[in-house]
């Protein structure tokens, strides 16, 4: 049996080599299919790996609170918000178990512009406090980050990103310069290291000022929406805190009975999970698309194998006349299809891997590609399956040829 396998393998390889261009074109479908699945999986898995790493940094004893407006309410013009009052309420009731890191986004049109001399920047202005440095992973190039004192005394100070500095033509080290937010002047106390882009979105286009300063700048007329990062003290149970915050916010927002929450409390794990769910769905959809392309590739293989059987009818007749048995012919053609597919799979794997590595280095800020073992095994398994399924019909055709007819074939 092993002897027959090696013999059939050798003659299959000989015939593939004899038609190298045709063999290559035949496997192109498989090559492209496998290459695309490996590329996609490589990129997505790399991305997912990075996300998991990043969320792990946040730790499991923290979660975020943000407002949530259902589509229905949005259409009616009811926009849910987490207000400074909410923050104050949670702060006052729960300061023994949690520390809050509020981030207030600018919703006042007058504040949208950041000016320096005649230059204007449209950096995102955010009010926050000391704790944001860790949450937002801000590393300083020059100067210092916002401190507790800045918030307590509502100091008019700012930490800016690299894009804002260049937009405003500020000096390389802008610490000490004054910029204008709306009608107020604030002093730059720090500038962050540039982070680059993620999906074409700059990560360096921000102006951070103390939360309290932001509140006073916005005035009482505007109703800011606050994103709240909650860190639990050691030994505090997350579930209970989650419930307490939910209760406080429901009370504060006047929600009763069956009213749905107009906010979301999310742990970093939930965030990771939902991200991973999305990524898994993308992987699955891609898998389906690739499955179809492999199917098409398989049909191509079957087509060429059938042509090859017809073309070699006489040869098959000769082999049968000099003593080849049915299963020996079958094995040879089946192995030929199988080897074609596996070679295609191997080529696709190499191309796909190189492509995903190349793409992940070319796209700035994109994490390095990671091709997991299961993807490799899966694409090989699938290629082999395609080879077997689509190789069996031509091989059976060859094996069933009548030697007399085959010998007469011109």
């Amino acid at each position, binding site marked *: 049996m092993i002897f027959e396998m090696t013999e059939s393998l050798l003659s299959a390889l000989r015939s593939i080599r004899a038609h190298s261009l045709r063999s290559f074109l035949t496997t192109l479908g498989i090559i492209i299919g496998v290459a695309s699945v490996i590329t996609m999986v490589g990129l997505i898995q790399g991305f997912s790996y990075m996300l998991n790493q990043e969320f792990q940094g946040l730790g499991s004893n923290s979660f975020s609170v943000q407002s949530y407006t259902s589509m229905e309410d949005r259409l009616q013009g009811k926009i849910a918000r987490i207000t400074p009052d909410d923050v104050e309420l949670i702060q006052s009731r729960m300061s023994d178990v949690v520390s809050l890191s509020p981030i207030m986004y600018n919703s006042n049109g007058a504040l949208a512009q950041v000016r320096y001399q005649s230059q204007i920047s449209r950096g995102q202005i955010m009010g926050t406090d000391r704790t944001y440095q860790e949450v937002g992973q801000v590393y300083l190039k020059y100067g210092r980050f916002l401190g507790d004192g800045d918030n307590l005394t509502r100091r008019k100070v700012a930490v800016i990103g690299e894009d804002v500095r260049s937009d405003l033509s500020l000096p390389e080290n802008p610490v000490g310069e004054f910029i204008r937010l709306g009608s107020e002047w604030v002093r730059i106390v720090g500038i962050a290291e540039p982070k680059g882009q993620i999906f074409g979105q700059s990560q360096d286009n921000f102006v951070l000022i103390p939360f309290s300063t932001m509140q006073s700048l916005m005035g009482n007329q505007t109703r800011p929406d606050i994103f709240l990062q909650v860190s639990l003290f050691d030994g505090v149970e997350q579930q209970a805190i989650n419930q307490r915050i939910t209760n406080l916010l429901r009370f504060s927002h006047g929600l009763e009975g069956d009213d749905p929450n107009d906010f979301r409390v999310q742990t970093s794990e939930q965030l990771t999970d939902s991200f991973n769910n999305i990524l898994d769905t993308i992987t699955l959809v891609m898998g389906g698309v690739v499955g179809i392309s492999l199917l098409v590739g398989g049909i191509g293989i079957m087509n060429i194998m059938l042509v090859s059987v017809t073309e070699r009818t006489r040869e098959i007749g000769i*082999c049968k006349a*000099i*003593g080849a048995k049915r299963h*020996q012919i079958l094995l040879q053609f089946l192995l030929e299809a199988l080897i074609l597919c596996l070679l295609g799979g191997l080529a696709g794997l190499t191309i796909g891997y190189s492509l995903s590595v190349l793409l992940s280095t070319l796209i700035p800020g994109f994490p390095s590609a990671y091709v997991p073992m299961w993807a490799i095994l899966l694409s090989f398994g699938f290629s082999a399956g395609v080879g077997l399924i689509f190789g069996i019909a031509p091989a059976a055709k060859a094996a069933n040829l009548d030697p*007399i007819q085959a*010998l007469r074939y011109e």
Partner: protein
Amino acid sequence: MALLSLDSLTKVYSMGHQELRALNAVSLEIPRGSYVAITGTSGSGKSTMLNILGCLDKPSSGVYVLNNTDVGTLSEDRLAEIRNHEIGFIFQSFNLLPRASALENVMQPLVYRGCSMKERRQLAEAALARVGLGNRIDHLPNQLSGGQRQRVAIARALVTEPSILLADEPTGNLDSQTTKEVMSLFDELYAQGQTIIIVTHEAEIAAHCERVIRLEDGYIASDKNNNRLRPSYDI
């Protein structure tokens, strides 16, 4: 006991409603070491006879015993084995594998009986030497002349040491000089004791053989001994 014996062998092809009797109750015996020509015009049943003798086809009725085996009852795989062990085919159009060298072509039948690579090579080289082609063994068929190709084909038929060498118009595609060479090769093999059956319509070829069986419309029209072994050509 004869090497092969046919007993009222009949082959019927049905074409639509018509029945064509290609062979009609043919009985004959061929002893080991014979040099037989089967002749006849086209449509006389020559090719059918060849296919059945070569175990490529089965008779509709009658018994074909080859080397003490009733071939008519065998499965397809057993027939393939018989072809491999008992019969060496030589075709009019050589029928070599086009992408395999002369040596590989000769080694091919041995693949199907499971010889090791080394043994195959030894036997094939010996067979090629026997037909006088010791030095061109690595050439592809299309790099060889017609005569050389037919020598490769004869070597391929000989390499399995078959009971019968079965040749179908072996000189049909060859010029007169190479025909001479190939026929003297057959004569030589006959002298060495090889059983040879040649299917041909050429009287000159048939004249080489010790026995000539002429078929006509599926019957044996005549079965004569030539009483001479090497008639028209000198070796």
